[in-house]
């Protein structure tokens, strides 16, 4: 008797799941077109969706917030120019929690529930490996800013990496450090970082350039004290500390360097430092002025001026984004990615991914004689005029290689305490250190 009751409840449970899914579907059917968003041929004006599939909660929540605002700003520009082939576009957030296991059902829910899904601004962290196969099976193109070098030679036509691979970051870091005049440095990375992909290339390049690593340390992230490690670093008398640390680790480590040394020494970090949570943690711990004086971050370069950048900045302000974000090259790259995808649809005259996906690299290829455009409106106009275009966006040229990665030059970034933002220095030469 009780068993039967249990079964009945199980049936209820399953029914509930089914009804949840049905709810997901009905939100589509109300717009009068099938889900999946891959059919763009039907008439009438309907809203398109850009799915922002990112971690919005947990440690990497800043990834999601960056991408969401970049998408919104781009959608603003697109919709102001009349939308994509007359259809307005919305950005909808889907939270992967940064967890590869949680990300799969979320991705599928996105595919089911997002009305007229035309592009995906995809995950940047540990969640991407499980999400990509699902998107590729669904033939859904996605853009990302993931650093993982394992994607350096991937061949899927649905994978578009807007920023360089980490495999080019370590050489750039070494190049900058050496050319800044620091030849004896201490290298400090947290142990959760892939030694193979960052530490080893860095050591190779730095050695080749003629620099000496007087102390190489891999430290446990987020422990309560690094006093011993700091003492070991200082005992080697480096000219600078080079490496990567998450926000909490950097706050503790650098404040202990300052304490033991009676002041900080120059610090050169990877792009991790310009992410939104770093300065809020490190700044108060060692003083924002100290961050400004001693810390440099090596991150992809941003154009930071010109029509494209100004349009980007204006859109970012309109969507009430954190001013931090308008200075972030990853946000700018995501913004450019959304515009480029939209222009590819216009070029292919189709919302169908299988039709427009081949046009994505053409939009930004910079072919000789192409008309350089800086905004979506300019791009649409030039395409209508039958011209070949070259979209150079807020983050500068974005040329995809055969593996779907847009390598870009790096630049040193320093913090400006008064403006509360990172300011880009002189761009490093392309392929610096490689």
């Amino acid at each position, binding site marked *: 008797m009780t068993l039967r009751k249990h079964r009945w409840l199980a049936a209820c449970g399953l029914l509930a799941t089914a009804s949840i899914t049905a709810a997901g579907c009905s939100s589509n059917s109300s717009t009068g077109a099938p889900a999946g968003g891959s059919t763009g041929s039907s008439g009438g004006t309907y809203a398109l969706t850009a799915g922002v599939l990112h971690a919005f909660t947990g440690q990497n*929540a800043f990834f999601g917030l960056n991408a969401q605002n970049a998408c919104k700003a781009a959608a603003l520009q697109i919709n102001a120019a009349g939308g994509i082939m007359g259809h307005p576009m919305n950005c909808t957030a889907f939270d992967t929690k940064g967890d590869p296991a949680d990300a799969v059902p979320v991705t599928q829910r996105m595919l089911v529930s997002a009305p007229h899904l035309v592009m995906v601004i995809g995950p940047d962290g540990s969640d991407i490996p499980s999400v990509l196969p699902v998107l590729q099976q669904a033939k859904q193109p996605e853009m990302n800013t993931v650093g993982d070098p394992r994607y350096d030679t991937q061949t899927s036509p649905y994978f578009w990496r807007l920023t360089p691979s980490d495999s080019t970051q370590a050489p750039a870091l070494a190049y900058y450090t050496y050319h800044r005049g620091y030849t004896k440095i201490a290298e400090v990375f947290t*142990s959760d970082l892939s030694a193979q992909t960052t530490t080893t290339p860095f050591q190779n390049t730095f050695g080749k350039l003629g620099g000496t690593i007087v102390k190489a*340390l*891999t*430290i*446990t992230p*987020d*422990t*309560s*004290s*690094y*006093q*011993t*490690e700091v*003492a*070991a670093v200082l*005992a080697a008398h480096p000219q600078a500390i080079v490496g990567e640390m998450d*926000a*909490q680790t950097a*706050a*503790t480590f*650098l*404040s*202990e360097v*300052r*304490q*033991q040394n*009676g*002041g900080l020494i120059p610090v050169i970090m990877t792009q991790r430092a310009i992410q939104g*949570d770093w300065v*809020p*943690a*490190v*700044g*108060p*711990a*060692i*003083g924002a002025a100290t961050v400004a004086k001693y810390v440099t971050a090596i991150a992809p370069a941003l154009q930071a001026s010109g029509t494209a950048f100004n349009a980007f900045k204006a859109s970012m302000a309109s969507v009430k984004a954190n001013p931090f974000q308008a200075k972030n090259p990853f946000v700018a790259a995501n913004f450019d990615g959304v515009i480029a995808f939209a222009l590819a649809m216009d070029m292919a005259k189709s919302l169908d991914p299988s039709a427009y996906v081949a046009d994505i690299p053409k939009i930004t290829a910079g072919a000789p004689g192409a008309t350089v455009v800086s905004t979506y409106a300019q791009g649409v106009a030039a395409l209508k005029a039958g011209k070949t275009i070259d979209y150079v966006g807020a983050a500068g040229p974005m040329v995809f290689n055969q593996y779907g990665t847009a390598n870009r030059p790096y630049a040193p970034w320093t913090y400006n305490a008064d403006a509360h933002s990172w300011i880009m220095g002189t761009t490093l030469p392309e392929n610096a250190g490689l």
Partner: protein
Amino acid sequence: MSQIVLSLGFGLVTASILALGAVGFTLQFGVTNLFNLAFGENMTVSMFVAYLALVSLHWNMWAAMAAGAVAGAVLSLGISRLVYLPFQRRGTSQFAMVMVTVAVSFILKNVLQMFSGATYYSYQLPPEPPIRFLGMVFDARQLAIIGLAATSLLGMHLLFKYTRLGKAMRATSDNAALARSVGIPTNRVVSAAWVLSGLLAGLAGVALAIDLGSFNSGTGGSYLLLIVAAAVFGSVGEPYGAVLGAVVIGLTSEVAAIYYPQLKDVVAFAILVLVLLLRPDGLRAGRVQMRAEVTV
């Protein structure tokens, strides 16, 4: 060698913070027999209260620390009265009580996070000149932390040894039923244990936040395991054992950092595992058992 001496000095700071926390944790456990996994959040709340006092109200560090400690005590007593005691009176089993404390820690942490957001906070204390001493390096604040821990622990020692409250606590810790039967007002003793434990959690929390440089709503919770490790190491319920555990774990984790900086916590925890292999109920298990047995 000098490197090791230096690390021992650093370890002393870590050990001091750990000891404050571990004694608070173990004292409350001894008296109430409740394994309180929400202790870390108690620390975090105190960190934030001290932050408000220090940064918003511009109190000095000592006053802010006192505010944090008082907040810790109030919270600790409040939760024990509102949540733990009612559950215990219902006869909730030991393991279910652990889940109750886990639930409380979930709630505290996330309510804190709702108000504090995902960002980090810092007391923004100015740098202090290093002080060299017997081959070790400290700054004034770290010496203050060590001093604070020493004073608090001495205070606890005197309390246990010479006051009626302290003796009543020890008696209750040994055998609550017996203590009640000889007229010790165990309810009051239990409350006192929660208050003291909260005070120590508060002090440990603020000291930790000072040492870390920055903290957020999850800091206390992630530090709790080291505290529990120190307490388990010295047999939970045994304040002197907890101090021993704190010193061993604090010193080894710093010394381990010379050789295995990427695994220093692992080394500290490995010691705990080793101790458990040799003495399943902690180093000073005999003493705890004695008190339980002799009173029978």
